[in-house]
């Protein structure tokens, strides 16, 4: 109709086609029922228009069969939509096992990206085509939202939490990144681009510049600078838990509850150390709130994650040898 005015967004991820298929089904349902209702109303309004001022309508009070029909049929249709929508969402919510991870920090009003290899970008993210990419995102201030329309994905980015969102781009190109959660003055300027590249171009881009080494190595340096390594030692002699091999494990807390060591747990342990004390340790760790930035937190997290690949040392004290069993028995809880 108007050149240069798109009416439908491009499809550029593995998820986009699945979302659009459901969308078209819903459009068909909506069009059918809108046309049915509008058609009937107009038809009746004309056909049964009042012919004389005193006429009244027929004495029709209702009909059980009709009521059941127009309760059950829409119910069944909505259940089809529910199952379809939930199953696509289920796929959206579960990233493949192997992903290329990128950390994202949102702040008023920009997007900061940190690649594991150490590259940092602002308002632009380079990723390879045909590979599952996982964004692990947090915010420095208020709530933001990563929204990439061409990929049909969106996730709120919240302070104090890590949100994961994944996609696999299907064709090279430049796609829109827009903040979709209102965040103040320049909300509509908190935009950027996702640059999807051929794997070779991506490799070339990667090798183009990794100024200060990998994210984990930056974290290792910070770990020493902040003197974390005086208490968290690899040999189980320190005053704090051993971190080697800890990521992804389940630990028992002093309260008897358990916690999975994920990004959020490490973050909380650095900023609010007394919130979840591992069983067997004293609450002596000072808070690092205000001393480390969100980006430095991510470096530290990535360093702790990298420790999982180190040669095995004797298992950390607080870690149960068989975390899957016995966790919920009262005996364990009381401890």
């Amino acid at each position, binding site marked *: 109709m108007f050149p240069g005015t798109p009416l439908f967004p491009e499809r550029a991820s593995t998820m986009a086609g699945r*979302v659009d298929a459901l969308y078209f089904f819903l459009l068909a349902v909506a069009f059918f029922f809108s046309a049915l209702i509008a058609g009937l109303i107009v038809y009746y309004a004309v056909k049964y228009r009042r012919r004389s001022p005193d006429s009244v309508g027929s004495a029709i009070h209702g009909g059980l069969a009709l*009521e059941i029909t127009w309760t059950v049929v829409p*119910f069944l249709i909505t259940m089809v*939509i529910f199952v379809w929508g939930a199953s696509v969402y289920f796929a959206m919510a579960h990233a493949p096992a192997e992903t290329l991870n990128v950390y994202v920090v949102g702040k008023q009003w920009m997007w900061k990206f940190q690649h594991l290899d150490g590259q940092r970008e602002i308002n632009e993210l380079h990723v390879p085509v045909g590979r599952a990419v996982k964004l692990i995102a947090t915010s420095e201030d208020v709530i933001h939202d990563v929204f990439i329309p061409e990929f049909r994905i969106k996730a709120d980015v919240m302070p104090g939490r890590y949100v994961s969102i994944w996609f696999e781009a299907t064709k090279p190109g430049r796609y829109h990144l*827009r903040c979709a959660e209102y965040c*103040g003055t320049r*909300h*509509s300027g908190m935009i950027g681009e996702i640059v999807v590249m051929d794997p070779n171009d991506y490799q070339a881009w990667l090798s183009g510049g990794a100024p200060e080494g990998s994210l984990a190595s930056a974290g290792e340096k910070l770990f020493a600078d902040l003197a974390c390594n005086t208490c968290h030692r690899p040999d189980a002699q320190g005053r704090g838990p051993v971190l080697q091999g800890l990521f992804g494990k389940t630990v028992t807390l002093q309260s008897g509850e358990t916690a999975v060591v994920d990004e959020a747990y490490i973050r909380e342990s650095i900023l609010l150390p007394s919130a979840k004390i591992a069983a067997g340790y004293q609450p002596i760790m000072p808070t690092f*709130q205000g001393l480390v930035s969100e980006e430095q937190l991510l470096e530290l997290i990535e360093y702790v994650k990298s420790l999982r690949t180190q040669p095995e040392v004797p298992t950390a004290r607080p870690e149960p040898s068989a975390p899957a069993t016995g966790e919920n028995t009262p005996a364990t809880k009381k401890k």
Partner: protein
Amino acid sequence: MSSTVLAPAHHYLNDGFGVKSWLLTRDHKRIALLYLASITFFFFIGGAFAVMIRLDLATPAGDLVSDDTYNKLFTMHGIVMVFFFLIPSIPATLGNFLVPLMIGAKDLAFPKLNLASWYIYVLGGLFTLYALVSGGVDTGWTFYTPFSTVASTTKVIPAALGIFITGFSSILTGLNFIVTIHRMRAPGMTWFRMPLFLWSIYATSLINVLGTPVIAITLLLIAAERLFHFGFFDPARGGDPVLMQHLFWFYSHPAVYIMVLPAMGVVSELVAAFCRKQVFGYAFVAFASLAIAVLGFLVWGHHMFVAGESVYAAMIFSILSFMVAIPSAVKVFNWTATMYKGSISWDTPMLYAIGFIGLFTIGGLTGLFLAAIAIDVHVTDTYFVIAHFHYIMVGGAIMGYMGGLHYWWPKISGRLYNEFLARIAAGIIFLGFNLTFFPQFVLGYLGMPRRYHAYPPEFQVLNVLSSAGASILGVGYLIPLVYLLWSLRYGRLASDNPWGAVGLEWMTTSPPPTQNFAETPIVTWEAYDYRAPAEGRVA
């Protein structure tokens, strides 16, 4: 019709003339008019904000106002329209006027409390007006934390306080209606002889009484956190911003039904009166109102599918959201079936009723898109959502309100408005509305987020269409303001029952006497019984 209509000698409008006779009145009909004047004032304030928003969005760069001003415009538009127009609109005006009349009572159960409710509403309105003129507020009507508690430097507390105070008027009006409907029905007016409008007002009142305290608590917590840094919602102090979203939507989703249920009740009345026929499946329509009120409390989580909700919580909220669509669909089918073999007139109120059914159907069906989680992920927080809820709230709630206002205007004012102008205005509103909001569905799926002051140039054509529609819609709303006011003085006198409708309100004079009925009616007929002998019924 007959040219010898005479105004009744005594009616509620000539029962005292001074300012005091209005400001200290306990007559539910006068209080309804106090509300009518107040909400009309706020409607045009909220509308002015909408006009400025659409003007600003006519260009991609947003050249009319600065980004901070834009953020205040959409915030104030939302706050004013939701809390000071839509929520009180039908219940406080038409509900106040009609609940006693429809059940054959002299007044509401608590007339003084009813007047107090209006004063509470005005007090809340004054706080909001203060927030507005002293610099405005920029949090969005949703007040999401930590933006509202930590980042915003605008008048968050006065605005929150205004909504907090006004909430009490909703609670008290709801209580008043519930007690009145339980205790004051005329002899023979059983529950299942009540007009369907009363069922929907009753359901709405339940939500008002049960839900409003939660938004009050939420706003208090926000104010306390902003003032004293308690940290309920602040992750740095162990709080959680998502907790605030749960509390907010626990009220604000049911609030959608506070807005649209009364309009559904109006539409049931209009369809019956202008088809001269009993509403098809009376009991199903009545219970659908209650089902919506109950299920409406269980779906708030569908506003938070992308806010870190667990996969399984999202699925439960999704399936419940589909369930709440069913009673709405049942109503639409029943209204449509009512028209079958009716005696259908095309008077202005019926045009609004038809407009409501069509637009509400589109609004409801696009709600299915948002309940389907995978689609919601893509379109939430975009213009798709804006279009969807304006189809419900403007295409639904305001269409119903306008239809009801026109239908009962002869009863309220004792005068007839200009039918020709009224039909033209209804048509303009319908066209302007669709031109404004339909392109926004397309914009939303394309990926234009809401609350954007500036947008990519390729979205301009659709935005200009929307802005053009908004100016048509604005004109559409100004025309009724003119001819309704004009009719108060110059309109032809209305007979007691100008539509030939049934219902107790049409069996008393136009305007009704202060006591509503010369003697308490005794009801021996079903609602909308157009074929029964019209004994005692004034035609």
